């Protein structure tokens, strides 16, 4: 027997072989597996969430979006929608969609936050996409209100109106009102670009910029109307109607009173 053969029968040889096998398998696995799996270690979700989400997704979403969220003839693919996309659509009740139409309206949310987190984790794990914000990212305490106003007027008012009341878009679609939007929903909408809303990436509209926009929208929601009743904050149309109906109405009533013979 030569030296190698003698070593092969060494009690430690088995141990060494196991070690080598593990290292090789692990190395191969690391090299070959997809990047999401590799990133799975630093994603803001757990495998339990992903699994739970997969089940929920299969029950509530796959009939339109496909079991692997690849999309179908009646629903777009969700690969790339990311954690944030699911959080927004399901979190505002837009999904599940009750009936096909030009636009998914916001309605009653039917999933608990835990369930939403799970589904978001599942879809987020399928393909790289935008992530939901951390509480720190939604902190507006240091944000500048006036900057928020300027950014809002440049980027948001053309669709959502100066008061955040929403506005008409093409063919029966509309930019919705922002009066009930939470800071998280605002952030999610900007980062995911739901329906026809464009995406405002964190590189062009930074997180600080977004915080100031959120602060501004919160100020709109506060319903401060220094001059009195705001008539819906819809501008000259409602003001004109009010002048005709209330103003002229009141003055004509007085004029009639002036002319009627006293008893």
């Amino acid at each position: 027997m030569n030296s190698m053969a003698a070593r092969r029968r060494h009690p430690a040889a088995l141990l060494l072989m196991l070690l080598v096998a593990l290292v090789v398998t692990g190395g191969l696995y690391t090299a070959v597996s997809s990047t999401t799996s590799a990133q799975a270690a630093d994603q803001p979700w757990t495998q339990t969430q992903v699994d739970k989400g997969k089940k929920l997704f299969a029950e509530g979403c796959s009939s339109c979006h496909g079991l692997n969220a690849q999309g179908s003839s009646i629903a777009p693919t969700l690969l790339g929608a990311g954690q944030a996309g699911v959080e927004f659509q399901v979190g505002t009740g837009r999904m599940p969609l009750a009936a096909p139409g030009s636009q998914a309206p916001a309605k009653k949310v039917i999933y608990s936050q835990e369930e939403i987190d799970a589904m978001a984790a599942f879809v987020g794990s399928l393909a790289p996409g935008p992530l939901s914000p951390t509480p720190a990212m939604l902190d507006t305490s240091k944000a500048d209100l006036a900057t928020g106003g300027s950014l809002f007027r440049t980027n948001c008012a053309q669709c959502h109106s100066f008061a955040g009341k929403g506005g008409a878009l093409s063919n029966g679609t509309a930019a919705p009102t922002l009066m009930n939007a939470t800071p998280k929903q605002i952030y999610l909408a900007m980062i995911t670009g739901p329906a026809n809303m464009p995406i405002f990436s964190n590189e062009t509209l930074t997180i600080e910029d977004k915080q100031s926009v959120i602060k501004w929208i919160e100020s709109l929601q506060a319903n401060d109307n220094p001059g009195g009743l705001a008539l819906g904050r819809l501008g000259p149309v409602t003001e004109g109607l009010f002048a005709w109906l209330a103003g002229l109405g009141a003055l004509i009533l007085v004029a009639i009173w002036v002319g009627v013979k006293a008893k």
Partner: protein
Amino acid sequence: MSAVVDAGGKAAGYLDDRLGIAKPAKGLLNKVFPDHWSFMLGEIALYSFIVLLLTGTYLTLWYKPSMTEVIYNGSYIPLNGVSMSEAFASTLNISFDVRGGLLMRQIHHWAALFFLVSITVHLMRVFFTGAFRKPRELNWVIGTGLLTLAILEGFAGYSLPDDLLSGTGLRIAQGIVLSIPIIGTWAQFLLFGGQFPGTDFIPRLFTVHVLLLPGIFLALIGAHLLMVFAQKHTQYPGPGRTNNNVVGFPLLPVYMAKAGGFFFIVFGVTALMSAFVTINPIWAFGPYTPDQVSAGSQPDWYMGWLDGAVRIFPNWETNIGAYSISWNVFIPTVVVPGIIFTLLGAYPFIERWVTGDNAEHNLLDRPRNAPTRTALGVMAITFYGMLWISGGNDIIATTFDLSINAITYSLRVLIFIVPPIAFVITKRICLSLQRRDNDKLLHGIESGNILRTPEGEFIEIHTPLPAKQQAVILSKHDVAPLAIETGYDENGVADPKRRSDRLRAKLSHWWYGDNIALPSRAELEAAQAHAAHDYHEQESVVDDYRNLEITSEPVLHSAAVGGHEENPHIKH
């Protein structure tokens, strides 16, 4: 009290010695004005104008007509540090740092809206009652001028704060000027002192808004009122009212108290509205900058029809070589209003030409008695209303969950279909109201009481028309269309005005053709005979103590006056 009278008498004497005011005062103080609420619509406009002058003067004490950019540093925190024009900053200052400033701004803007609302309603009243006929055609023309200038004045006024909403309107105005063929670019550069937005336009608008147009207004309103005084106000038909008298109250004391009081009412209502209801919240719009815009941007209501016209117009543009004509902008914003205001101003003359009616009219028409005019008016209002709706198409889309594209396409078609339908419906309604009037004159009013005679005949008791209603119905003119001449005289020589005469006669037939004349003497006498039969029947069964009569107004009983109480249908 007598001390006051003495002092007053001395003052009057002082003035009369120098100005000879006693004689005009005599006529003026005794002047009779008819009393109807619809005559106060013009007053609302006049008083709103005075409120505008007062509040406007106040605002000029703080407003800065300058487009120089400054960084805001006032009380309104949401705009702190933002770059804006001095005009906008000074408006914020008025709104948040000057006590009562926001109130003044709101009174000014609400008064402006009331000014235009009341001018429009007053115009409609004058139109539908035919008050623009001889001798008041010139007053109508002045009125049209006032309306046009009021629209421009309002536009200039709400553009002065240089906020995002009105600034967008100025940008659109610039685009409109550019669309004028041949001279457009030069006109735009001259108006704005160069390219848009420049720094000259707001200061120039300020001059127009505060100096030029108010001056013209004072002159035109003065002429408008002077004519009403000189020609005496028209009146509605009624008992005792003829074409040659005025029945009402004298200037002193009743009319002065009522009209003067009404000024305070208008001021008060405007101020109360400004206490509770926001108007033009420029702080919420933000300062104007040409790279920002809000969804749902509309001009003030009286410009809405122009906005609507430009929204629904198809995108026609013709390019001939190096030159372009932008029909899509030029027609709805320049040509259409030009035609509308010209037709409006010329209307009394057009109607006079068509009807051949050259008589002086001081008694107002009931709209039903001029069915073609009334129908034309309703058609015009419908057209205007549809343009106005077009201007708010995006707000309608969001409020009623409709497609804005569908709204626009529909309106492009409906605007030509709905007004003629309105014309036909209105005319038919007027004509049937005329028939009803004749019915009332001939047969009285149905009282709703059915009488069964002993013979078994059922008669509905008609009460004869009360005097007031009779007077009103009887005021209808006898009208006849112009005769259609052959156009040739007996020697076969053609009349040079042949064609226009024929056209005129045909139009007057269309105008008057369907009119229903008041009953003739024979018809009235026949109706009398029939009614006498009915009264005879009633007499025999009516119980003295069961009052089957329906009187039209309650009676004030007073022994001192010995008020009338007999029921003329019950013979005592």
